[in-house]
């Protein structure tokens, strides 16, 4: 147990330290070299030089850059991401409120993506190079080129405006409202995930079809259905966990777009409104939290992969 899980996880965490520092440094520099003075923005054009100097001091902007960076990093580890200029509340509080819709959307999108892509991949591997397989490859290439906001617009028109099945935006107030309102955005994200998931599933099934265990199972005279289920699909599922984890990472980026198309008040929506109002601390906080989210997902994927595949070990 210790050898297989805890030690590799700890090792993995240690290698994450430089990456985490790098993420902080990049985010910090990004918004410090940005044009536009956050103090002037917060106080308005007519603020006196004195008021500006006081506020600069309050925010620690008069200290040397490296001290500011240290303060920033120490703050992050205390859960302090600074104060939002426009929302009159700590950035961390604003983000915490917006996190649940984003997570819900990611879960829903991934689920729908898997439900759509897996049967297609199984069908397509029935006859490699057959008509359906070839058709799917072209279809997947087509789907891959559709940006998620275009997909979202189509989904809104079809399900929301033409069929009138679902609300086309907003998030509602009750849990039921929330669940109903994330259906269409989740479908958008799910469809957007089909290309990568389909290719991954297909490749995983092909790989396990070629493995010795399948030849062995065939030689044993196992019935086709059983052979498929236990010797092909199941080992393929292990590879797939890895793939899904990696996709979840990039999926986070797509969520940003889709949230804005459907007006879901999640982190992506928060980021866009922070950008429009040039709320520097808020943008900085959201970007950091997004990066943390991706990193945690990658880490969990690694752990799951090790747990599922007896041969695998984390590197």
């Amino acid at each position, binding site marked *: 147990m210790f050898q297989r899980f805890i030690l590799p996880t700890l090792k993995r965490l240690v290698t994450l330290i*430089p*990456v985490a520092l*790098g*993420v902080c440094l*990049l985010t910090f520099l*990004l*918004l410090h*070299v*940005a*044009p536009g003075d956050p103090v002037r923005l917060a106080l308005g054009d007519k603020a006196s030089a004195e008021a500006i100097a006081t506020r600069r001091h309050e925010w620690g902007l008069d200290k040397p850059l490296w001290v500011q960076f240290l303060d920033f990093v120490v703050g992050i580890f205390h859960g302090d991401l600074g104060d939002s200029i426009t929302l009159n509340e700590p950035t961390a509080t604003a983000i915490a409120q917006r996190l649940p819709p984003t997570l819900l959307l990611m879960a829903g999108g991934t689920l729908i993506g898997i439900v759509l892509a897996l049967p297609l991949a199984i069908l397509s591997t029935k*006859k*490699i*190079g057959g008509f359906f397989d*070839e058709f799917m*490859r*072209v279809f*997947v*290439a*087509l789907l*891959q*080129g*559709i*940006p*998620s*906001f*275009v997909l979202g*617009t*189509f989904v809104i*028109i079809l399900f929301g*405006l033409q069929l009138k099945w679902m609300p086309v935006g907003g998030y509602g107030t009750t849990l039921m409202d929330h669940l109903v309102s994330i259906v269409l955005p989740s479908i958008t994200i799910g469809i957007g995930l089909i290309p990568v998931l389909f290719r991954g599933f297909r*490749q995983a099934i092909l*790989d396990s*079809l*070629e493995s*010795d265990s*399948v*030849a062995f199972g065939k030689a044993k005279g196992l019935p086709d259905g059983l052979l498929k289920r236990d010797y092909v699909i199941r080992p393929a599922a292990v590879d797939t966990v890895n793939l899904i984890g990696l996709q979840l*990472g*990039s999926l*986070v*980026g*797509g969520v*940003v*777009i889709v949230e*804005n198309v459907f007006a879901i008040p999640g982190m992506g929506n928060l*980021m*866009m409104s922070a*950008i429009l109002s040039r709320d520097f601390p808020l*943008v900085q906080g*959201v*970007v950091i939290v*997004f*990066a943390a*989210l*991706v*990193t945690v997902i990658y880490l969990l994927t690694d752990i799951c992969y090790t747990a599922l595949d007896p041969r695998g070990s984390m590197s």
Partner: protein
Amino acid sequence: MTGKQVKPKEYDPARIRMFSGCALLLVTLLVCFIVPILIHADPYAQDVANGLRSPYAEHIMGTDALGRDIFARLLYGGQTDLIVAMVAVIAPLILGTFLGASGGYYGGWLDTLIMRIADVISAFPFYVLAIALVFVIGNGMGSVFTAIAIVSWVPYCRLVRAEASRIKNLDFISAAKMGNLSDLRIIINHVMPNVMHQALTYAVTDASANIGVIVTLSYFGMGLVPPQPDWGQMLSEGQQYFANGDYYLIFFPALAIIIASFAFSLIGEGLNVDKETR
């Protein structure tokens, strides 16, 4: 291979995909660049009295709120989007290939440093970093190029590094070292040409992704900004009117985006076929 053998075919579907992708791209480019000259289309001419008219003889794709011809704006928007998408591939391709080749060739601390930087970049969700960068640099074509360069060199670097560390001990590299060539010259003249092929293949797929980035940014009012016509921005303008069922305003730009990225990803799909087993 013990499983089912792929049926030998007189034609190769991967090739067909690649050539149809090329043909589609060529047609799109030709339409965007030649047709405006032939029909003297003006994407800026306003005619508010004839605003928001669905397609009719004079304006075959209708007009937008200011009475501008959607067809003309689509063609000029395509010129911008396609050129930006293709040019934006160059910087990350060169940067990623060079860094990957150097890392793979030298190994050691330089390699570790480069790969850690790559890890940092890929810790950010793609669109989050791209949007933040354009926010910081400001709008305009230059900032789109810069943002794409900073965000998308990583996959090139990873692809090339693996290849470079494989070939660095081969004879022709040793021969180059013996010939007393400088490291920089070895990397550029001897390592890079031999590890470029995968990166070049990836570049085609990347161009397709770039179209997505460019139109997504401009859809949110970032990057390419008015009055420069652009597909993403046309879509976001059109969206204000679709509650009344005026779908033509978004249908044509959406179709254009899909056709253009489909062309690139078809080519990529066709080129990629033998690289499937990672």
